């Protein structure tokens, strides 16, 4: 065991694994007395893990080549850990008021993050699979966390059945790739001959991972899970795992199959186009805000996939920048959704936002900025995300999906504007009840992050993420 290389490459994940196991033990002893404090403790651990990934940003190889981190994956990890920490802090008020506060919640989140870390650091199909399963199993349980609710249980079950199917497909793809290329290691696969068997394996891998990023046509679970799962869980699902899934998808395709870009570019392009179209049209008729943002996320994954289809040289940095901006604005938006509480519980219909600008002006301003950001309207942050993605697409000459991207962003404006109009022009509804400080703070912070002042931050991210491949607008 070469401890030095393990610490350099995997210290955040070691911390998470250790903290997770410790939390299980502590939880088993103290039971519900540990529940409240577990959320904060795990959030702190996640922040530390995020900082660790930034400190050890150079990364390296570990575990005999099964594990490899570089600045790109470390940045993605940091984004995931920070988002999870914020999502966790935002959850506490909801969990308390819905009487769902149990120490398992924090433990599941920490293991989900461990899964993300493993999958992001994967340099081997087996490591990737382990990570995906750790993430997946924690997510299924989280989706069904409100076990007394029929919807939540249904969401968990649906997610579990379909997720397992996708995992099976990934595993089958991995075994085909192993059989025809002789290895599960990314580097060896990259050097081996690309034959029909590997191609079959590759297509199966893409299929399974497309499910994980909720890209069309494997998106069907998303609206149901978003609607059924408890809102703080969805807040978590909408941010960190999306980034992780997209980046692990990217590292697999870039590292193991980068030399055969032409073989998978069309597949990813078609998935991207389909996701954007389904995301745009699917959301138009939704009235449940969580369902609406589920479709919106499908569409947004489509934009990220444009960057993926552009290949490593042109798209890698754009992909990460896009996903990071997306994840943070999702935290803000779900913060607003978490605030939608009236007497008798949470409300989820978009008409409940009606007249928000008079009842809660600050929340209304934030929501407006966040929605316009997700819609990609300048001068807000989401625009810069879309900009670099489109730039990657144009540079790679992917004209058809770039045009689809344009058209679907106009269509999707239809429902984003509907929300804005309700907020500003609708009949006044009574104000929502007591929003927690953390949620308001997060919403505000996310709103500030989407403003162009913070484009400097994005510029820094671009420089870090793209340093090894070339920068957007370089």
């Amino acid at each position, binding site marked *: 065991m070469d401890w030095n290389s393990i610490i350099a490459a995997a210290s955040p994940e070691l911390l998470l694994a250790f903290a997770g196991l410790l939390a299980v033990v502590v939880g088993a002893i103290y039971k519900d007395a540990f529940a409240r404090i577990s959320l904060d403790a795990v959030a702190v651990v996640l922040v530390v893990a995020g900082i660790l990934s930034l400190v050890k940003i150079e990364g390296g190889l570990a575990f005999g080549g099964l594990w490899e981190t570089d600045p790109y994956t470390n940045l993605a990890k940091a984004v995931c850990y920070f988002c999870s920490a914020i999502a966790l802090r935002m959850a506490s008020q909801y969990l308390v008021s819905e009487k769902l506060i149990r120490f398992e919640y924090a433990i599941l989140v920490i293991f989900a993050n461990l899964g993300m870390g493993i999958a992001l650091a994967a340099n081997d199909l087996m490591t990737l699979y382990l990570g995906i399963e750790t993430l997946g199993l924690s997510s299924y349980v989280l989706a069904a966390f409100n076990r007394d609710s029929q919807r939540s249980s249904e969401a968990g079950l649906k997610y579990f059945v379909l997720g397992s199917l996708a995992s099976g497909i990934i595993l089958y793809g991995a075994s085909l790739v192993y059989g025809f290329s002789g290895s599960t290691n990314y580097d060896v696969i990259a050097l081996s001959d690309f034959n029909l068997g590997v191609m079959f394996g590759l297509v199966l891998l893409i299929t399974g991972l497309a499910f994980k990023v909720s890209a069309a046509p494997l998106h069907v679970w998303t609206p149901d899970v978003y609607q059924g799962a408890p809102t703080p869980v969805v807040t978590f699902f909408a941010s960190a795992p999306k980034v992780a899934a997209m980046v692990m998808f990217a590292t697999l395709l870039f590292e193991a199959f980068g030399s055969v870009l032409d073989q998978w570019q069309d597949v990813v392009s078609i998935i991207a186009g389909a996701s954007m179209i389904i995301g745009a049209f699917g959301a138009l008729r939704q009235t449940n805000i969580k369902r609406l943002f589920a479709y919106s996320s499908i569409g947004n994954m489509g934009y990220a996939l444009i960057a993926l289809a552009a290949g490593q040289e042109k798209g890698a940095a754009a992909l990460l920048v896009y996903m990071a901006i997306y994840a943070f604005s999702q935290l803000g938006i779900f913060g607003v959704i978490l605030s939608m509480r009236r007497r008798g519980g949470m409300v989820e219909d978009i008409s409940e936002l009606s007249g928000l*600008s*008079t009842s809660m002006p600050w929340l209304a301003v934030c929501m407006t900025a966040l929605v*316009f950001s997700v819609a990609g*309207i*300048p*001068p807000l942050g989401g*625009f*810069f995300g879309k*900009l670099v993605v*489109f*730039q990657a697409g*144009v*540079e790679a000459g992917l004209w058809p999906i*770039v*045009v689809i991207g*344009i*058209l679907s*962003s*106009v269509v999707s*404006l*239809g429902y984003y*504007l509907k929300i*804005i*109009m309700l907020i*500003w*022009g609708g009949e006044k509804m009574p104000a929502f009840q007591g929003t927690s400080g953390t949620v308001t703070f997060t919403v505000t912070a996310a709103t500030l992050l989407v403003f*162009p002042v913070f*484009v*400097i931050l*994005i*510029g820094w991210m*671009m*420089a870090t993420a793209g*340093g090894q491949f*070339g*920068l*957007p*607008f*370089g």
Partner: protein
Amino acid sequence: MGEFALLSFTIFFPLLGAILLLSIRKVAASGSEDDVSHESRIAFSTGIVVSAMTFILSLIALAYFNPSIEGYQLLEDIHWFGGALNEDGTMTGGIRYKLGVDGLSILLVLLTTFLTPLCFLASWSSIKHRVTEYVAAFLILESLMLGVFCSLDLMLFYVFFEGGLIPMFIIIGIWGGAERIYASFKFFLYTLLGSLFMLIAIIAMYLQAGTSDIAVLQDVMPKLFAVDDGKFGVQHLLWLAFFASFAVKLPMWPVHTWLPDAHVQAPTAGSVILAGVLLKMGGYGFLRFSLPMFPEASVYFQPMVFALSVIAIVYASIVAFRQTDMKKLIAYSSVAHMGFVTLGIFSFTETGVQGAIFQMISHGVISGALFLIVGVIYDRMHTREISFYGGLVSRMPIYATVFMLFTMANVGLPGTSGFIGEILTMIGGYQAATWAAAGAALGVIFSAVYMLTLYRRTVFGVITNEKLEGISDLTRTEMIVFAPLVVATIVLGVYPQPIFDMAHMSVEPILSVFASLGG
């Protein structure tokens, strides 16, 4: 001049005012519980002071501006994002925050800062709810519009250009008429679709040229995408992408249909800004980007633009004649007048282009005034139906006089600024294509028909509608609003030379390219 960032300060001053206003709002609301007029007084006086100071700032910029030298002045240039990091820590390429003005843009900056305070004055009595947000939205919009005209980086331009949609969408959507939601959605989606094609073209240009600096692109673009033997090529595609954006914004036939809806539903001040400034972004875009960057494609598409312009002029005039809503009539008249602008720009002659610039400024003043005129009686009677009115001259003599002046200006009567713009664009059009000028001249006749009909039916005659018996003439505030517009219309109509002097040095380099093309 030194290091002081005058343009940045001018651009962001209204934005700062808006932020200030929004942050003091709580104090105002809690200071007097249900006193709306208190809030309105604070909001509008802040708005007027801030926008008036912005106007002064733009006058200072004008004072520093030297119209007799070619190129951009009052430059500010900082690296913004993207680009490649060099060994020594400096950045090459990337998107820059670059500002500067030339004769063309400073005129439009002045038009913007001139109209905004008038908008606040005009809406003081008509806007009763959410006044703070209203004023803030206009101030933010002003910032973004100024940014559009001062940007010297395409990406920065795009950010401002597109960002302006948000406040305008909110202005139409909240303070608009009964169909405001439909109108605001239509406005947003139409404009966005056009602009996104331009965005893709901007990205493609950046990837080819390695920069999005407008001054550099104007130099290198014609060479980078040179056209061989008039064949359809990349330059034509890029031209079309830009055209998609500016044609919607201007608007040109047949993508003008958002404009009548937006105008009718927007509050009066919203219409003034829409017609006065936002439409000018289309013409500005043609002059700043399409012509200098894609000269061959511009020549290639000249007949198409001429055809669309003439159709716009004639068709919109005929449609205007049949309108029963006063605002809709003026909106269609805007479409027709913008047809003159494209006609002048694409004539590629000094006369035509100067005429187009003049027409933009003059139309900004005249159509703004006409929307205010409709707003005056709308505030009193809450209807814009032409048939509702009649015989206003007996109750509102001053109003009738002002209305008369702007009717004549809109028709293009000599002595008003409307005349200069129309005649010059037609001369320019005549030099390029006789048929286009002939068609446009037809439009001038039609414009006289619909404007004079409108005037006759609302102002002349005896009062038949008893509801009009008690209508009052212009208040002092309204007179203060109209006074500068009247002065501007007549002064520009009698002595237009300052505008030409100002714009000359920006027009000449554009046209020199076309002279060498022989187009």
